[in-house]
């Protein structure tokens, strides 16, 4: 077995086990941290495929930003898992059905159309191959239009999220730091000149 395969199976095993722990762990914070481990292992797999740009972006966006906010929320909420588990038996048949169908579908796809003789493994690129450069080259030429549409969609989503959550609260009192900074000594301090008083004996 080549070294690459050993590394692949190592990270793939970690990935699958961590994914299982995400749904079986009793503590939501542990689940979130296992999800982080999942992202990390899949980033490692992508690096094995010489897709270092995608791998680093996965770590940067999902692990560095999205999961931090996830953890933030999960830690603040006091989630009672017993309440959440109440419907477990009730929904179990539906869950098993869905799981079975998806496993079946995937099996059909993998064994039917996606075999190695139809899709041979891509040839290893040379050592100086840069995935970052390759993605940049196609993203801003061939796929420019779809790239721009995706960017606009994201912008709309951001604006919508802000518009939905912004509330005007008339009773809040806020400070204006730029005004506070501009305050001068003469605005606050009043020096009074007075004669010294003698102590009465």
């Amino acid at each position: 077995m080549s070294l690459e395969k050993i590394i692949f199976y190592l990270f793939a095993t970690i990935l699958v086990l961590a994914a299982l722990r995400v749904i079986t762990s009793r503590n939501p914070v542990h689940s979130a941290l296992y999800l982080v481990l999942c992202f990390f292992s899949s980033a490692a797999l992508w690096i094995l495929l010489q897709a270092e740009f995608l791998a680093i972006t996965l770590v940067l966006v999902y692990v560095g930003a999205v999961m931090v906010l996830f953890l933030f929320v999960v830690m603040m909420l006091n989630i009672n898992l017993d309440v959440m588990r109440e419907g477990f038996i009730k929904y179990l048949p539906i869950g098993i059905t869905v799981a079975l169908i998806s496993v079946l579908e995937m099996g059909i796809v993998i064994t039917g159309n996606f075999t190695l003789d139809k899709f041979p493994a891509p040839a290893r690129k040379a050592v100086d191959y840069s995935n970052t450069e390759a993605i940049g080259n196609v993203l801003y030429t061939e796929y420019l239009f779809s790239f721009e549409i995706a960017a606009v969609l994201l912008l709309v989503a951001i604006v919508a999220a802000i518009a939905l959550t912004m509330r005007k609260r008339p009773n809040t009192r806020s400070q204006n730091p730029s005004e506070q900074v501009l305050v001068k000594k003469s605005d606050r301090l009043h020096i009074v000149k007075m004669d010294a008083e003698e102590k009465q004996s």
Partner: protein
Amino acid sequence: MLEFILDLLFVLLKIFAILLPLLLGVAYLTYAERKLIGYMQVRLGPNRVGPKGWLQPIADALKLMMKEIVIPTNADKFLFVIAPMLAIAPSLAAWAVVPFDEGLVLSNIDASLLYVLAMTSLGVYGIIVAGWASNSKYAFLGAMRSAAQIVSYEIAMGFALVGVLMAASSINLHDIVMQQSGGIWHWYWMPLFPLFLVYFISGIAETNRAPFDVAEGESEIVAGFHIEYSGMTFAVFFLAEYANIILISVLTALMFMGGWLSPFQGIPWFEDTFLAKSSIIWFLSKAAFFAFCFLWFRATFPRYRYDQIMRLGWKVFIPITIIWILVLGAVIAARVSYVTLGVWTVGIVAAYLLLNKIATRAGT
């Protein structure tokens, strides 16, 4: 197979050659901090262990190693112990792509700028996990503050790096430095002056250093996220913080101050002297200057109020970076040289500061 093992050993040796001086630098940065802040406050600083206190960091390390590691009741033991490691691992891993001199880099990958950004954004996990696993209200409050602060400043930091990669048209740190060659006026601190300031200040906020150290604000939440940590687990948090300071200093030197390039490059008068030669010495002295600034700021500025930190990050830094990216785009499209942009930028800032000074002088 033998060749492979030899290669692996060689890489391990290189990693060792980077990490050993780094950890020594971290130890002596703590000493430098105590000594420098001491002098700034007209004290002597540590002066008992060894001549002039030089052995103080070693004594501290020995003391911390000997101390018991106390694990609080009902703490999440596994996460509690692993949190300091989560804090230090990314700050050491980022050094894999840092170039020290022309061609002197452990891994010269094309996406090195992205890699560094990804690694610095991971440091927050150590802090959040520590705060949560400690089962303590103070630790939790510190972790929450830190998480909110790091997530906010990361955006400004990322945008500042976008400016750098636009100017250099590369995200390879080695290429970014080589693009800046040709004297101090070619370095990116001039054309990217606002981004340079935003990056360095965001770097201070990212590392939770004064004046942005609300995550451990002693006067409010005792020591923040590491309040329950003792002995070696505390020491590892400490190491991570100082390793991050050195990392941010090094990155600022690389991206805005021309890395190992000499400032006298291209001046006819210095052409043949050793001063015009680019070398690792320039790189280390630039990084040392920024590390000194970290300590200097700590001794100078009082801690920011929390709402002011958030305002500075979201309402000041992010708009500045976005505007400067637009300016830079216009300059690139109009094919104006970076030197012209740099001279104008720094000139306008200097003129504004001068006029401001004159105006306040006249006002009083």
